[in-house]
């Protein structure tokens, strides 16, 4: 699984985690970077139960950008006597404002892959067409892997034992005929 044929399909950084997602021939690997250690989770294509695609805003990013914007505006206001400094702060405020508004408008595309035992999520803030292509690709790979697995299992597993059918019971009329006549 962990071999040279890994293809990086996405990464995501937030305050708490840094994640890199790779696609391999057998599934999807999520590398979570935890200080100097990489913790790897895998979702195999032949284990996939559900793949979802949705958009979300990510409120923490927007809130952070709003705080930064407010902070830079305040700094620009405080340092308004020094024009170069104030304009630098104003430019930074504009930048963070643009980033926040862009996030609100574009949202983040999230692909979530649910397996039998694990799940993986891939987030794309800007590459929308690429995200859609990856979603279709993962679905196609999962379908193909499960088809292959079903064929393998069909060839490996012995056929179910044939249960011999029991002889049919006689019809109810015959039963009454076979019964002794009631005593009179």
């Amino acid at each position: 699984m962990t071999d040279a044929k890994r293809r990086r399909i996405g990464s995501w950084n937030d305050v708490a985690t840094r994640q890199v997602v790779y696609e391999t021939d057998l599934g999807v690997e999520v590398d979570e970077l935890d200080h100097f250690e990489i913790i790897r989770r895998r979702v195999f294509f032949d284990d996939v139960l559900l793949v979802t695609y949705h958009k979300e805003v990510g409120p923490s990013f927007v809130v952070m950008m709003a705080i930064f914007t407010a902070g830079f505006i305040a700094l620009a206001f405080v340092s308004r006597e020094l024009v170069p400094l104030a304009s630098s702060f104003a430019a930074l405020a504009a930048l963070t404002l643009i980033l926040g508004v862009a996030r609100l408008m574009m949202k983040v595309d999230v692909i979530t892959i649910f397996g039998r035992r694990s799940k993986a999520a891939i987030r794309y803030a800007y590459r929308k067409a690429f995200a859609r292509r990856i979603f279709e690709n993962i679905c196609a790979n999962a379908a193909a892997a499960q088809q292959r697995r079903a064929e393998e299992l069909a060839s490996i597993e012995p056929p179910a034992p044939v249960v011999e059918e029991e002889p049919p019971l006689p019809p109810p009329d015959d039963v009454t005929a076979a019964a002794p006549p009631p005593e009179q």
Partner: protein
Amino acid sequence: MARPRSAYAGPACPHCRHVLASDALQDGDIRCPACLTEFEARVFHPPQRSARVLQLAQSGPEGATSCANHPRNAAVASCERCGLLICSLCQLDVESGKYCPSCFERLAQEGALATAKNRFRDYGSLAMVWSIVGLLFSFLFLGIPLGIVSIYYAIRALRSRQNRSSLIVVAAGIFIALVDIGLGGTILFSMLNVARHFP
């Protein structure tokens, strides 16, 4: 240290993590009953292997040996590590070997099975960090030893396949480490020169 994770409970809403019932899953757009978020879904039905275990009673009187863990089941293999006779329920095929569950668990814990390994040292980041520390403290003659250390980590990162993605980080680490060594050597050389001229 890794954050504690809640136990995985199967397919759920990707937004609020509300567990979805299997009959609620369908291809197309789904609305989560808990948070009302709409998402596109593709449902799969992975094939499951139906375990047909050979019972001791079915296998015939000659040559039938029972599994060490399941006395009613016939053994079909022996563990390659401990030699325990195992039935098809216990048999774990890993990396072209057959292992019993306890040996598999132990080998996985020891990191002997590459496919079962899920924790790796990030040598690329280590190389980068140590090279920067060496640069910051090069005036204390730490540039040379820390540069050497970071080059060692960079080589480890290049050798380990799982770190291929951080090639830029590794290259930057090597570059800064070489700067460390150069700077440290220059400082050391100039100090020695000064010491030679002023005994």
